[in-house]
């Protein structure tokens, strides 16, 4: 039984897991959907009530009947590297690849349909609240007046992007930014603005969930630091224990969301409370493992290579 990893060739974080799988002798096939067609060849057959499918890439062959699990890491857009790429070719290739993969009886980290839902920031906040996390007051609005009222109520407010920096503009950054009620909110009418009460933090917390295993890391914040992803500080990530209440909330969250992997971001305030900021269903873990030594890649490889079903996360939700 073979593990399929969907990711780009330059994804060195995926290498960490590939190396683990090699150590345990687990067959693995690594595919970038951008290389299909091209370096990769696909064929799916439906005949006499039977389904069969095969993928080959760089000399490595995988049959759908022998598919142990799928890890969706950093895949390129289907057919992006084709000799003559086009939106149509991408759409056709996506149909062929995922249509075939969805027919296989296998485990996903994470299933694309669950991943799509899990990426929605407003939905994350709702599930976080239902799971028992502390969630900062938040508004996502196109109404300037409501944005103004929110900022006046909470005084220190951050603006953040739900979808990240504008795509197709390399080198653009859009960090979480602290603003006050004197900002000009008229441009909120030109696009949804996500505003959240600012949590003055003494540390950032990154909690990585792999199946039922939890790895928490803490990095002390600089005074006034708003977005822990930007700006170098003297502090590094250190492993910390997961409070029981947080662990229970994490399990509730990933169970509800149907996720086998998730990277949670928290802001630890002056009282030690971990405030939920977001849950990244495909969040990076390499930087955490390199600094703390936590065996996250080993945990990912273990989850991918074991055939017993994770009863908490079904392979296919519907």
């Amino acid at each position: 039984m073979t593990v399929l990893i969907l990711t780009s060739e330059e994804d060195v974080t995926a290498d960490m897991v590939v190396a683990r799988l090699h150590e345990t002798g687990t067959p693995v096939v690594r595919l970038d959907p951008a290389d299909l067609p091209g370096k990769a060849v696909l064929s799916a057959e439906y005949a006499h009530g039977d389904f069969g499918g095969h993928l080959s890439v760089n000399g490595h062959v995988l049959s759908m009947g022998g598919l142990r699990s799928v890890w969706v890491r950093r895949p390129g857009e289907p057919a992006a590297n084709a000799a003559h790429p086009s939106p149509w070719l991408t759409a056709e290739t996506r149909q062929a690849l995922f249509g075939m993969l969805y027919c296989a009886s296998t485990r996903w980290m994470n299933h694309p349909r669950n991943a799509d839902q899990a990426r929605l920031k407003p939905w994350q906040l709702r599930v976080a609240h239902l799971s028992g996390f502390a969630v900062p007051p938040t508004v996502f609005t196109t109404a300037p007046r409501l944005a103004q009222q929110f900022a006046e109520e909470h005084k220190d407010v951050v603006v953040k992007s739900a979808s990240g920096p504008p795509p197709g503009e390399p080198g653009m950054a859009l960090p979480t930014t602290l603003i006050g009620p004197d900002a000009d909110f008229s441009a909120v009418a030109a696009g949804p603005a996500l505003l959240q009460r600012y949590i003055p933090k003494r540390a950032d917390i990154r909690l990585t969930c792999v199946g039922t295993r939890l790895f928490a890391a803490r990095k002390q914040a600089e005074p006034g630091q708003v977005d822990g992803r930007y700006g170098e500080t003297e502090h590094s990530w250190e492993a910390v224990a997961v409070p029981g209440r947080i662990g229970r909330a994490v399990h509730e969250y990933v169970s509800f969301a149907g996720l086998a992997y998730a990277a949670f971001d928290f802001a630890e305030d002056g009282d030690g409370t971990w405030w939920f900021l977001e849950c990244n269903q495909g969040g990076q873990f390499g930087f955490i493992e390199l600094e703390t030594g936590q065996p996250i890649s080993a945990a990912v490889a273990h989850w991918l290579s074991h055939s017993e079903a994770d009863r908490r996360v079904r392979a296919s939700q519907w």
Partner: protein
Amino acid sequence: MRPFTLNYAYRSGLTTMVTPYSFDASRQLNVLPDGSPAVSDRDLLMAAGTTTSTAGSATHFDD
């Protein structure tokens, strides 16, 4: 009118990283010029910054 949130975007000035490793198709991972896996050199990975929380966010927002 430019959407409110985009007023806080800026050019980070980061240039494309030249990574000191290349993909080995038969081994299905990246290797250094001497053929050893890139992941065997922790210091190199830390310096390359390709495992950071924002690595790959140009094409993926799942940081």
